[in-house]
């Protein structure tokens, strides 16, 4: 019963969806203010979701069953990430050994769900988007995992979010050291790519491939994908807060740190043009991976 409550309501689905949708509104509002516009009201993303739920769901001719299953897969896994993270932050002693690895795996599943769903929709533009998404996943996973290995090395080889938090509580945040700063910068780039935000949104480029992977989705499955995006916008910055800025996790501080990360994401999004997929891949496998490797080496030497 408690597990169900945790999964569906408090750190899980309902809470993270609300926070994520409001964070999505912050994104739209700040973007609008940067462009000297007024921007939508705060409930805009909720209205969008309700509207999409009321629309007709069109399944393209010849689409496989996975077309409708993959959005649910993405949502379920990302809600699980939000639950594990929330539980680990509320009571670090209750988290289980190896949950950081579980979170890493679960964070890839939304991207895989997008790829599977786009491939099942039999649309040529969707398949272009799917292939770009696949390359992007290959690109950012390596540096992301390397930067998290740096964190693991820094907290004496512990692979449990709870004990990483405890370590930071005792010895100060990981970001307060050269290797921590490097790994944090790498993780921010990877977060931007995981969220499909602007420098790395070639898979959903609205202007060139018409929403790419999402092109055939309408109604309910599209709403589920939007919710998945919203919860990712809640879960990934929170993950980084737990890994790098975990010194003081009282509600006020954690909200402040989350908002700082959100503002960084939005500023990167609004001041950069979209990268081509080959540029993004070169960027991730070149300088970013190098940075992550340097961070690991520094972490091994205890810097």
């Amino acid at each position, binding site marked *: 019963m408690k597990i169900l409550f945790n999964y569906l309501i408090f750190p899980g689905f309902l809470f993270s969806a609300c926070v994520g949708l409001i964070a999505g509104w912050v994104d739209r509002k700040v973007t609008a203010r940067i462009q000297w*516009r007024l*921007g939508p*009201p705060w409930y805009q993303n909720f*209205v969008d979701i309700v509207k999409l739920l*009321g629309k*007709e769901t069109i399944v393209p001719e010849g689409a496989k069953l996975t077309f409708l299953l993959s959005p649910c897969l993405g949502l379920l896994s990302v809600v699980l990430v939000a639950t594990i993270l929330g539980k680990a932050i509320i009571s670090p002693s209750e988290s289980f050994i190896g949950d950081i690895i579980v979170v890493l795996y679960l964070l890839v599943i939304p991207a895989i769900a997008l790829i599977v769903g786009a491939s099942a929709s039999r649309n040529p533009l969707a398949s272009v988007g799917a292939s770009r998404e696949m390359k992007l996943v290959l690109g950012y996973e390596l540096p992301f995992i390397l930067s998290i290995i740096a964190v693991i090395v820094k907290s004496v080889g512990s692979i449990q979010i709870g004990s990483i938090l405890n370590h930071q509580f005792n010895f100060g945040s990981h970001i307060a050291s050269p290797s921590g700063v490097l790994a944090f910068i790498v993780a921010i780039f990877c977060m931007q790519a995981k969220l499909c935000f602007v420098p790395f949104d070639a898979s959903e480029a609205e*202007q060139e491939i018409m929403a790419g992977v999402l092109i*055939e989705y*309408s*109604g309910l499955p599209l709403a589920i994908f939007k919710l998945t995006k919203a919860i990712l916008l809640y879960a990934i910055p929170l993950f980084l807060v737990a890994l790098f800025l975990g010194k003081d996790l009282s509600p006020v501080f954690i909200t402040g740190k989350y908002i700082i990360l959100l503002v960084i994401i939005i500023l990167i999004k609004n001041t950069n043009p979209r990268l081509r997929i080959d540029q993004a891949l070169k960027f991730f496998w070149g300088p970013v991976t190098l940075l992550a490797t340097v961070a690991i080496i520094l972490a091994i030497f205890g810097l």
Partner: protein
Amino acid sequence: MDIKLKALTKSIWVFHAATSPCNNCDIEVLDLLTPRYDVERFGIILVGSVRHADALLVTGVPNYKTKERLKKLYVQTPKPCVVVAIGGCACGRVMFAESYNSPCAVDEVIPVDVYIPGCPPKPEAIIAGIVKLIQKINKK
């Protein structure tokens, strides 16, 4: 009052269907998204795929080719959706009524909910038209 339609009026996602216009109306439509008019205040955004759309903005006079495309687009839009004809051409073909390559007007192909005349209509006129459309949906 239906919550579905209520939510629809608060967040209209627009797909821009250009059926061989002269591009004047398209520029006026794009004006709506710029800082001066900023229709995102009302939740109106331009989407890339017709599957995400709630409203079709039709500009121009359909010719033999775009007529078929327009019909397909309307079928592909998830219902409930609305169709807005923008500009004199889309409303009533004006001077192209007798033209050799103009088989029909927009409303002979798909049902049109709102007509916004003008050549091109001012952005204010388009916003006024959308307001009338929302009032019409609310009365339903």
